[in-house]
């Protein structure tokens, strides 16, 4: 349930920049391997936003697919788990899927 801490951090980041204006929409980038459940985050976000400029804002979560590059053959592959092996036997280095970012917000 670390989604509660994450939602709190998102609400705080937005409220600091809204200067009293009502926040209508918040856009996040959440990687597939960021260990965050979007549904749990949405639920927590609505609770955390209550009584702030962010209350009632729509939470737009863009999920980023996991991708890795092979350290041997340099091929880029998509991953469904945050570990794995390339077909060539090489070690994979994750290049996408670990994002946890507030992209932007729309204010009234």
């Amino acid at each position, binding site marked *: 349930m*670390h989604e509660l801490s994450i939602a709190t951090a998102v609400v*705080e980041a937005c409220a600091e920049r809204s*200067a009293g204006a009502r926040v209508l929409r918040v856009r996040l980038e959440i990687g597939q391997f960021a260990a965050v459940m979007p549904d749990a985050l949405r639920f927590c976000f609505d609770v955390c936003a209550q009584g702030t400029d962010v209350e009632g804002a729509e939470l737009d979560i863009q999920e980023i697919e996991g991708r890795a590059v092979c350290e041997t053959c340099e091929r880029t592959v998509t991953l469904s788990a945050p570990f794995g092996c390339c077909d060539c036997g090489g070690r994979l280095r994750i290049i996408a899927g670990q994002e946890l970012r507030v992209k932007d917000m729309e204010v009234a």
Partner: protein
Amino acid sequence: MCTTCGCGADEITIDGKHAHAEAHAHAHTHDHSHHDAASAHGHTVLLEQDILAKNRLFAERNRGWFAGREVLAINLMSSPGAGKTSILERTIRDLHGSRPIAVLEGDQATANDSDRIRAAGAPVVQINTGTGCHLDAHMVAHGVERLNPSRGAMLLIENVGNLVCPALFDLGEQARVVIVSVTEGDDKPIKYPHMFHACELMLINKVDLLPYVRFDVERCIGHAHQVNPRIEVLRVSAETGEGMQDWYQWLSKQSSISGLAA
């Protein structure tokens, strides 16, 4: 309100007292970008901000504090019941007289673990997270303030028993250790890959029970290396002391890696 740890919600306690009940020894810097905000109305405001940025800031502050005092900070994580506290108790007793050890205990509730650590002979501060499932860098900053470990001490941070959430939160530690016990499944590393990916060392505890349980040590190590090829592995028993010398050597090695006195 400090929302990094949510302690304004009166839920987190340090040794039974609310985290913000006393004045802060460290100054809080809350950056407010008023210039950006003034022009924010009626359009999209770019933030491009790491959600855990504040935690990272506190973690870096802790790291600096530890380095300044030559404190070796180790974050210990596991599922509940893997033996974190037992390993700490044995470590404190075995290393008694060789290097000062201080402990931060993280649990949702009770001071049971800190009582055990105190009885083993180390100064300890209990952080109760309430409903929180992990320690974060801000809670650790508060805990360290109260604990005030001596120069050159080893600070062992026992995180809340949980193989998911603590993996995400940098506390400012020099190294992370995950403990798995042989009474659990040997597939824990691939079931909870984030945790095993985040750690430098895996301790396989309760090896004295191996004759009685169906736990394949090699299979467990294979899974751990699949998730994290660099993770080191030690087999220990906090009960019998088996393998504990290897653990102490590993701790001593971390000191030299960090440029601290071993």
